[in-house]
């Protein structure tokens, strides 16, 4: 069994809008799994369902691949989640945030692990800073350190690199690749096609539907079209103009547009 988690026929509606339409896929153990799609594709909804923060209308998320022999309730300690929005206490220090997360997950003797993680994320010099005073990149790393303190088997990262400067982004990727050594399965959502190259396996989503899946090479081969990435400001206006005047498919990905032809 090399499947960590399998997602089976997930459906979710918000009122009239179908946010997720019959989504199924498997996440392989100890790999970096990519969930790629434009804004509004349903990535965040899907991740929140997988973390148990949201209930699906139908379908299920099967964690039997990583569930330990113990009781079923323990699954919460095997899952880590980094939301798009920073969700730690800005008035607590780096150390205190990690301590709190360790405590509520019932981790004793977290001190050594905390030092390790602070070293690993290069936050050691900032350990007595209040989290609110850290930069965007550092907050992201702190959130990761907090998640890793209880050694989850799988972590879900919702657009961890959106709004983070390129240098921090690259550093973040190095840290993530290092995690694979610790037997952690990683799921990352991103709107950036250029990051897709770094994944072991990709699921592409649009409008709540799974449109294709495979390794980055397979996806590229199957697409058989040219994707032109346009980075521009303001991206929303450019999107509207292109949509009106160009026949080919235009998609908005955070701060850039993809033109497929």
């Amino acid at each position: 069994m090399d499947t960590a988690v399998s997602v089976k026929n997930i459906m979710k509606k918000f009122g009239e809008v179908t946010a997720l339409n019959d989504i199924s896929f498997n996440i392989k153990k100890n790999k970096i799994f990519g969930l790629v799609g434009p804004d509004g594709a349903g990535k965040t909804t899907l991740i929140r369902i997988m973390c148990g923060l949201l209930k699906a209308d139908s379908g299920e998320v099967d964690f039997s691949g990583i569930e330990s022999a113990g009781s079923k309730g323990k699954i919460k300690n095997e899952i880590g989640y980094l939301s798009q929005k920073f969700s730690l206490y800005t008035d607590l220090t780096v150390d205190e945030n990690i301590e709190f997360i360790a405590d509520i997950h019932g981790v004793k003797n977290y001190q050594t692990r905390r030092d390790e993680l602070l070293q690993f994320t290069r936050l050691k010099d900032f350990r007595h800073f209040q989290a609110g005073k850290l930069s965007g990149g550092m907050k992201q790393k702190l959130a990761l350190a907090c998640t890793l303190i209880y050694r989850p088997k799988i972590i879900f990262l919702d657009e961890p690199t959106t709004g983070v400067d390129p240098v921090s982004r690259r550093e973040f990727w190095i840290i993530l690749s290092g995690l694979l050594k610790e037997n952690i399965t990683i799921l990352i959502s991103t709107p950036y096609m250029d990051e897709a190259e770094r994944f072991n396996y990709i699921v592409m989503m649009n409008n709540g539907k799974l449109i294709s899946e495979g390794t980055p090479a397979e996806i590229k081969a199957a697409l058989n079209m040219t994707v032109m990435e346009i980075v521009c400001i303001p991206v929303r206006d450019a999107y509207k103009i292109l949509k009106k005047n160009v026949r080919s498919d235009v998609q908005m990905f955070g701060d850039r547009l993809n033109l497929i032809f």
Partner: protein
Amino acid sequence: MFTRIISISVKEFRQIFRDKRSLLIIFLLPVSLLALFGYAISIDVENIKLGVFDKDNSETSRKYLSSLDASAYFTITDHIRNDNEVNELLNNGKIYAAIVIPDNFEKEIQSDKNVMIQYIVDGVDASTAGIVQNYLLAVTYQFNSKIVTEELSRKGIKSVTPLNAEMQFWYNKDLDSTLFFIPGLIAMILIIITVILTSISLVREKEFSTIEQIRISPVSSLQLILGKITPYLILSLFIAASILLMGGILFGVEVKGSYMDLFIGTVCYLLATLSMGVFISTIAESQQVAFQISQLISQLPTIIFSGFIFPIESMPYFIQLLSNITPSKYFIIILRNILIKGTELSVYIDQIYFLLIFSAIFIFISAIRIKREQMT
């Protein structure tokens, strides 16, 4: 189970002590509210200003007036010379009541006639006017009986008073209304502060989505609630102690009953108010809304329905039923028993049970609501 509750409490304490605003609310607001309300809310009538229009200006009339002036309730501030002045002084609010003594006051008394003294009282504030009326009548009757006694003794008859009422006021000997209001004040200050602090602290977790880290952890909604309540319970006990201390210094409040009973009663009340705060946080989506709902739910019923100022017994039956929804009603009964009467726990054990049931219900409903919220 308990380690998670403790870790949430420890985190909460760190946040409270780092936030200057909540520290200000906790340590300054209660004591200043007590001083403010304690001095403002008092229905004792003292030093009522009187204007005197003495048309007789005789020895007897002066004697009567000085007996009024001698009481602590009245002070004669103005001597009036004509009818217009009576109007003017009352209209301007310079005096509260005017006394008009007719010109042959002394002569008529001496010839055993019935004399009318006219009182013109400002009736805007009905309750104060009523009290003033009673005081004035009492002073007049006293003066009457003095004249009668003198008259009789001059004629060689020993005067007899067949009926005399001797009053003894128990518990609050001096009928000090501040002493009566203090329990209500303590209840009001505690409910406002605890409901606001807990509801806001939980809603803040929603607003900053910090609650998500707790939701994906194995912490149950009951553990979350208890972890949130504990630090505020401890702090509120300190607040209660500081209010009591200040009440002692400023208004001479003393604990006549046992401190242990006081502690038990206060803890039960705080559990009830804190669980109200938790419940509000499950309905409110922003800190501002939570603040407003908290104020409305805590302050208004405490002032109107709790028997703090208006006696519940004189309310219509429907309102009496409604008054049961506020925990302060029960705490005020407990406090009056402990602080003023000094009675045993068994006297107000029903109130203690009510507060515990109230807390249990609110915590239970909130736990269910928090659990349900996680899924939507």
